[in-house]
């Protein structure tokens, strides 16, 4: 099973400009991590909406809140407990406000 760990941060998102902490880097290097992306600080975001059939751009992230999506890690594990264990480990490193764990649709033969 593949799971996406949606990594949420708090505050200004200044950390996004810094180097990856070695303890996080070591998690990202694991064989069960199948991919990851880091997002630049939420202040750099532009949100695109459609209003009255016109494209409307707003400065900032889609959800304006104290917490922001800072990145995404894909893990390939047996079941939810495997994904929760990685999330708990990352959370204990103290760089994240919270991590949302979501299963990823598997591509099936004759696909959806």
């Amino acid at each position, binding site marked *: *099973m593949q799971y996406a760990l949606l990594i949420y941060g708090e505050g200004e998102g200044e950390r996004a400009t810094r180097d990856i902490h070695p303890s996080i880097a070591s998690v990202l290097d694991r064989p069960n991590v199948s991919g990851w992306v880091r997002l630049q600080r939420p202040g750099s975001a532009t949100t695109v909406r459609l209003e009255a059939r016109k494209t409307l751009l707003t400065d900032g992230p889609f959800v304006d809140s104290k917490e922001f999506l800072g990145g995404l890690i894909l893990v390939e594990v*047996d*079941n*939810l*407990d495997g994904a*929760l264990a990685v999330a708990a480990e990352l959370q204990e490193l103290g760089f994240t406000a919270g991590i949302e*764990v979501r*299963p990823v649709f598997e591509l*099936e033969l004759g696909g959806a």
Partner: protein
Amino acid sequence: MLEDVFRDHWGRVLATLVGVLGDIELAEDAAQEAFALAAERWPRDGHPENPTAWLITTARNRAIDRIRRERTLAAKTEQLQRELRDPPEEPMDEAATFPDERLELIFTCCHPALALDAQVALTLRTLGGVTTEEIARAFLVPFETMSKRLTRAKHKIRDAAIPFAVPPDEILPERLDAVLAVVYLIFNEGWGGGRVDLAAEAIRLARALVELMPDEAEAAGLLALMLFNHSRRDARFRAGQLVLLDEQDRSLWDEAQIADAGQVLERAIALQGTGTYVLQAAIAELHTQQPRDWEQIALLYGRLEQLTGSPIVRVNRAVALAELEGPERALALLEDLDLDGYLYFHSTRADLLRRLGRNDEAHDAYTRALALAEAEPERRFLQTRLDELRPPSAGF
């Protein structure tokens, strides 16, 4: 009664089917089909020699048939794929061919990634065999709400791949806490409504838990607690009416079960158990002794209240205090509690008021308790008490 037979087998059959089919919803549909078929055939053709094996095999075959029909649901597990190639013959007779996987199922149902109310409902439904209607009634929510809650939980288990397994050692203790809470709830469901089957089911689950985790004092504590309470099941009702502990016919108590409970409790205490279940079991043991050591009982309730901060424990402590220092002191202990929706708060108050001769107030409290009571034996008991009190309007 066939319904009782079904209730006995439901959890066992369903757990095995979840193990085979890898999906709770699919397993539940298949089990339901098999039970419906049994309801039709067993009264006509007689019960099979091994009902569990019959039900599992029938349900599995039905599920496989359905999967064949619905090709999009291509094989869920390797085992199933094998069975699709080599369909099993007609019902087998050895139960031994089907492992008891209720423990796996209970850890799935009590997984902390599910909301607590969903954990409880799902365990009652899948292992207790309680209907969605009954669960909805027990938790005072509309049927549709409960039905959605169960469906949502089953879908989350499937979509998020919540494991169908006994957790590994490092997370076992925390996962156990949730399971124990749910098992005790199932026991109480069987207890309050006089449904002995469910209570026995809860005891069986707890026994399996104690075997699996012999060092876990709280699991043993819970088992001992349930055994003590269960040992009085035959004395607890007379002519369909609830009988209080003091008025129970002690010859109806299950002495063997009390002895069993005592041994389990000793084991829990030897493991240095001081948790809530061990304390409650110790109190339950004191309640089986005559004369009762109210001082010790009140002390243990005090410790339990410290540990849990529960107003319900306060109600129990008040009962013990009434024996030690009289109903007036006990009543004072209940004064500032905010338990208006709790049946035993009102019945306890009513009893204390009755003993103080404050019959009008006792009448009001019994009336309030009766309005909250669901189980028939309990309603009859409260009604009898109410009848014994002269209603306020009848005084000359």
